């Protein structure tokens, strides 16, 4: 069980094993790709034992900067200084040797290997004769695991481990190679709120042992919780530094370059009759696994149902099954009484289902096709774009002009390739395509992933407008902030099952527990307990700042603290941190 440094600090480390410290400086780093300037004279100083956050939107250049630091790219200009001496990295090997470790957003682990094998990979210790010495690696893993309280079994298979633990394996990999600076690239993208809190604790632990951490993120809440200093990057340039005491609005404005509204102005829902029903739906994957297991729910006209849950719990398969992309589907899906199971994708789309897929570049858009062609990807064979087998390019372009104006897609022309658009504009194109015909159901999966703030505002407004138009809307999102902002009702999936459907206004911590599989009643009870425990030990005035839209069962007096070591409080600012929600 992870030690939570609650009142006292961590146990004093054995100084003989203390990580040696390192000062890292990036001076004037510029990286160009052709004419695109990804990093523009960036200066960052990471002091020893400091958690330095790089804050910026998607596409701001943070990952490129880290790839430069890690030796994956050569900087066009500028230098890297370690302990005030300039260095060049020809590749990650050099960076690792210099003491820089990186935990990538998408883990670089071999699923069928054990933890020890993964940690040894690339830096294997051998016995005489060239035989692999995994015991040595196991020993090192246990050592590090004990030092930081990771609780990782060296012989467990990666694919059997939950995501949070896999991430710890990545951290161990870096520490085993004696990393003095740890770069964490958007580490919380795949974690539940509880996992995130644990990770933040780990970061504090590492810091106390002298490791510097470069924490890349766009999530204000976490950044404020754990950083010592924040460097804000916007469009490849450093726009300033801030300290964690700055308000989220201030930080958001620095990230975006203008004042941002972090809350959505949403009229209350006016749900009518339920027209979309899913009954006992089961989807079986090719390997026999029930990726969706007996789910039932309904959506009424004029309401938004948000499906929440950590990535990989069946949400993707649910939407794909509705669309008709899965073969082994049992149960029933009805729209206005019509059965959708067993119909082809084209039939489902023609039945009035609009679908925005979660990965627009993979299955939403054809990057090499023009924007105009993408806008009619599902209607290319219908009037007015085609008569019989012959298409009319003029009509296609005309339609494009209208849609581009309507959705404010930033592009000089509809004949340019869709791949040239920014993430936000691409998503607008996909939405424009789906929303430009009469719909009886609108499904949007991760609607604002990888999208800049301005476009997020626009897209959210558009989704709500569709709801107000009387269409049942289903949003699937792994971003809790987005779920809370948009939903009228929230359904949480865990391992393919529906954990429960709760109304909007349910607290973050309740939702977080539900995302980990806890039933709604237990989650609410648990959350109430923690509330009371916190309120007993902390400033009672802080209670007023807690999420007022709590749970009906909250009664601090009757539920004394259950957990002797409650979780570090997750920040309860309602509706904040909605900036730049998307994660990869």
């Amino acid at each position, binding site marked *: 069980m992870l030690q939570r440094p609650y009142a006292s600090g961590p146990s004093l480390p054995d100084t003989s094993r203390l990580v040696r410290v390192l000062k890292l400086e990036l001076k004037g780093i510029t990286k160009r790709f052709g004419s695109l300037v990804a990093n523009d004279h960036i200066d960052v100083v990471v002091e020893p034992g400091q958690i330095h956050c790089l804050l910026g939107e998607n596409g701001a250049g943070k990952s490129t900067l880290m790839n430069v630091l890690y030796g994956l790219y050569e900087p066009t200009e500028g230098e890297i200084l370690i302990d005030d001496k300039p260095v060049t990295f020809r590749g990650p090997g050099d960076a690792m040797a210099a003491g820089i470790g990186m935990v990538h957003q998408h883990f670089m682990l071999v699923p069928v290997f054990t933890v020890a094998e993964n940690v040894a990979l690339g830096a294997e210790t051998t016995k005489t004769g060239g035989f692999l010495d995994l015991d040595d690696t196991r020993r090192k893993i246990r050592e590090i695991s004990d030092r930081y309280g990771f609780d990782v079994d060296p012989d467990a298979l990666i694919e059997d481990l939950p995501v949070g633990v896999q991430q710890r394996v990545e951290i161990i990999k870096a520490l085993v190679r004696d990393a003095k600076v740890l770069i964490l690239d958007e580490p919380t993208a795949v974690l539940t709120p509880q996992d995130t809190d644990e990770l933040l604790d780990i970061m504090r632990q590492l810091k106390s042992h002298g490791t510097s951490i470069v924490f890349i993120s766009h999530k204000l809440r976490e950044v404020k919780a754990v950083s010592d200093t924040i460097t804000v990057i916007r469009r490849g340039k450093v726009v300033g530094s801030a300290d964690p005491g700055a308000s989220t609005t201030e930080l958001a404005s620095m990230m975006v370059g203008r004042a941002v509204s972090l809350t959505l102005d949403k009229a209350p829902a006016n749900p009518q009759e339920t027209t979309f029903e899913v009954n006992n739906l089961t989807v079986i994957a090719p390997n026999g696994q029930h990726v969706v297991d007996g789910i039932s729910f309904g959506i009424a006209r004029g309401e938004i149902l948000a499906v929440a849950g950590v990535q990989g719990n069946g949400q993707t398969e649910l939407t794909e099954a509705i669309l008709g992309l899965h073969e082994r589907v049992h149960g029933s899906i009805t729209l206005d009484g019509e059965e959708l199971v067993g119909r082809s994708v084209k039939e489902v789309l023609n039945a009035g289902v609009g679908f925005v897929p979660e990965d627009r570049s993979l299955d939403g858009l054809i990057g*090499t096709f023009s924007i105009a062609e993408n806008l009619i990807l599902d209607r290319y064979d219908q009037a007015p774009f085609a008569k019989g087998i012959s298409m009319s390019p003029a009509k296609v372009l005309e339609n494009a002009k209208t849609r581009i104006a309507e959705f404010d897609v930033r592009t000089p022309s509809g004949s340019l390739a869709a791949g040239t658009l920014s993430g936000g504009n691409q998503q607008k194109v996909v939405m424009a395509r789906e929303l430009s015909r009469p719909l009886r159901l609108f499904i949007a999966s991760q609607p604002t992933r990888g999208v800049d703030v301005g476009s997020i505002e626009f897209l959210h407004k558009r989704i709500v407008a569709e709801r107000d138009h009387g269409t049942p809307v289903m949003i699937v999102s792994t971003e809790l902030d987005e779920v809370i902002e948009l939903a009228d009702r929230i359904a949480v999936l865990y391992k393919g099952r529906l954990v429960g459907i709760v109304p909007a206004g349910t607290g973050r911590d309740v939702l977080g527990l539900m995302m980990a599989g806890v039933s709604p009643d237990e989650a609410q009870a648990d959350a109430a307990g923690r509330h009371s425990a916190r309120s007993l030990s902390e400033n009672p005035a802080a209670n007023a700042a807690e999420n007022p839209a709590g749970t009906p069962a909250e009664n601090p007096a009757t539920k004394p603290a259950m957990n002797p070591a409650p979780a570090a409080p997750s920040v309860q600012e309602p509706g904040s941190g909605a900036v730049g929600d998307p994660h990869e």
Partner: protein
Amino acid sequence: MSENTEPRSAAAPDPDQLPASQATDVEPEPLEDAADFVTSLDTAGGAHQPSAVPVSTQSGALPGAPEEESLLRKIFTGNGIVTILAVLLALILGGLLIAMTDKVVGTTAGYLFARPSDFLIAVWSAATDSYVALFQGAVFNPRGNGVAGQFAPLMETLTIATPLITAGLGVALAFRAGLFNIGAQGQIIMAGILASWVGFALHLPLGIHLLLVLVAGVIGGAVWGGIVGVLKARTGAHEVIVTIMFNYIALYFLRYLLDTDLFQRPGADTPISPIVDPSAAYPLIFGSQYRLHLGFLLAIAATVFVSWLLNRSTLGFEFRAVGANPKAALTAGINVSRATILVMTIAGGLAGLAGVAQVAGTEKVLTDGVAATYGFDAITVALLGRSSPWGTFAAGLLFGAFRAGAVQMQIQTGTPIDIVLVVQSLIVLFIAAPPLVRAIFGLNPRKKKAATAGKTKQAATTGGAA
């Protein structure tokens, strides 16, 4: 990247709005710095394989050039220019190869340092003489008999280009849909079998007979390609393997047939079929002094058809969508299986046209060499033409010219015909490596080297870690 949603004021430049060329998300591409030269935009951050078909032929105009680069530079670093430069480079290397094997050059090399000019002149002569002979054999022979004789080479080029063009179209069309049609050879053979049988076994009046021959040939190729499409759509069998195997099946089937009474010419002991009826042969376009036949006009028609199909028809839209991004096509409701089967059928039919051209156009008999090497040359032609219909047409003409001119080149200068094959192969090599071509001609977009980082004396490769 910030884009605000307030109404745009037309005049004032919005400082938050980036020009389109800078507004793209930067995804860490694996160490590829030449982002200007786009072979594929749609790799979904590395999740996709880049498409085999160059992006510029897929659809839509590509984004405007970065402002710094001049118009001329844009033209010279674009895709089309790379193709031309690849051909040029291959010709230069071919010329050097010719020179290396030339006798005169060998002699002058013996006293190279005494009179280097002799050597250089000899090299130049050897190469240019051969290429001039090539030209005279391919396009225009000033020493020919009268005007007719002078243009005979051109007619020969067009004749040889005919099957190359249609088979090339068959390969190119499939490429555009994401499929590698290596089976043009087999499709030509099957078309040849059916077409020749109708040609010599049936005896019908003039117009009908030829029409039937044409239809039979196209069906033969279409079915042979269609089966591959079905296998791919139903079972996922990789079309490269299936088509290669089908080539062998077709070849041995042909050899077997030529041994049977049905196909073997009575009285002959070599595997050759009866001669095709005159009513089943393609009429000659310019009379009997040349070999140029109707097939060439059909090749032009086929090019127009493929161009219309790909760019103006719903079917072509589906083909291109499936070729560019099958997942997105599926999600948009396109029936990928049906598209696969249809495209292979049509592609097979186009290759079949080449078989008909051989049987009803030039050879007029069926032998086991009916497909010659056209099936494989078609792949090269499609590649050189970047899988676009008119590009394939032009590439077919070029290769036809090489083939026609090679004979004359051998006669006049003694250079072996195979040099032409070497040049052809070099073209393919260079087409497949555009950055190499650009580097050789110094056309790569200017890159600033890492300034001080790489040049300080202390630049230890493993960093200065204490």
